[in-house]
């Protein structure tokens, strides 16, 4: 039985989805932001894998089909963007200034903190693309000579934290405009944050989707400039 579980292609994914639904239920019942379904699911799955001695590769045999859907799902983010195109046009200046400001803030914050904490050049460029979507961030890190594995891990952690704290940060710092909320979430926490923006509303989701693409491309250009600063 144990051996069967260790090699089952469906067990891992089923547990992940069950934990996700449990997270959704807990959040609804307890109204606590901490019970972020994504976080609950990741932690529960890690615990189950560790207890049952299933290694990540076995889990991924089934789970890779979830990841496989990411590319078509990201392509579909064009749909809310199209539906909100009028809004995008009438707020063109605000949208692009917001995203550009977000990208520069991300690079400046990483530069300032890296030099304060005395990180090496390699460690610094590893963290530079941390706010953008994984696939673009990996490319940037590789090109600048960073540690790609760490970049990927940091990007995912950034996304999950953004997903958890987006609502609270917007509330505390008085970001009320749906357009501004979406831009803030997308610029700070890419696609994983966008999943949250999508739950907050159509406008938030559309603006967050746009931020993924635009901030990713702007970071490709600006990170190569910032790489010279430390």
């Amino acid at each position: 039985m144990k051996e069967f579980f260790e090699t089952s292609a469906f067990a891992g994914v089923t547990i992940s989805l069950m934990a996700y639904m449990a997270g959704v239920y807990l959040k609804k019942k307890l109204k606590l932001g901490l019970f972020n379904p994504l976080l609950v699911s990741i932690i529960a799955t890690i615990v189950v894998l560790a207890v049952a001695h299933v290694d990540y590769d076995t889990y991924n045999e089934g789970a890779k089909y979830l990841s496989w859907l990411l590319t078509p799902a990201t392509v579909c983010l064009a749909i809310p963007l199209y539906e909100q195109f009028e809004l995008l046009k009438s707020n063109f200046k605000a949208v692009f200034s917001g995203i550009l400001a977000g990208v520069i803030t991300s690079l400046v914050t990483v530069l300032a903190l890296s030099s304060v904490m005395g990180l090496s050049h390699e460690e610094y460029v590893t963290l530079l693309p941390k706010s953008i979507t994984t696939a673009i961030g990996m490319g940037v890190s590789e090109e600048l000579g960073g540690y790609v594995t760490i970049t990927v891990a940091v990007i995912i952690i950034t996304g999950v934290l953004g997903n958890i704290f987006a609502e609270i940060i917007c509330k505390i710092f008085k970001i009320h405009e749906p357009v501004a909320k979406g831009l803030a979430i997308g610029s700070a926490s890419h696609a994983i944050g966008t999943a949250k923006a999508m739950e907050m509303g159509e406008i938030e989701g559309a603006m967050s989707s746009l931020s993924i693409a635009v901030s990713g491309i702007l970071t490709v250009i600006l990170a190569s400039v910032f790489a010279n600063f430390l």
Partner: protein
Amino acid sequence: MKYLKQFLIILTISFIGEILKELLPLPVPASIYGMVILFVCLLSGIIKLDSVRETGKLLIEIMPVMFIPAGVGLIASWNVLKPLLIPVSIITCLTIVTVMIVSGHVAQIIIKKGKNKEQM
């Protein structure tokens, strides 16, 4: 057949994105090329909203669960991450907050200015 047709269109665009990624020497993933292609096709009317809407919305709705494997995969990179844990945690948390505040407020200020102008 509706869902199958819609899924086929979405997959075809993903595939074209993959081809572009192969041909162009930029660190841009297939999904971003695909998103731009679908957006342009919808705007120009080459693809009607009705021919992708339901499947697209379904994929977007279940999108959060697609990040679970990547999150669980953090256990695999734990050993590399461990020595840098403290600086990485500080930088990660602070950057999220600064980026959200600056990006959100820059956009919000410009939107409000525009609204005030309209009222005058």
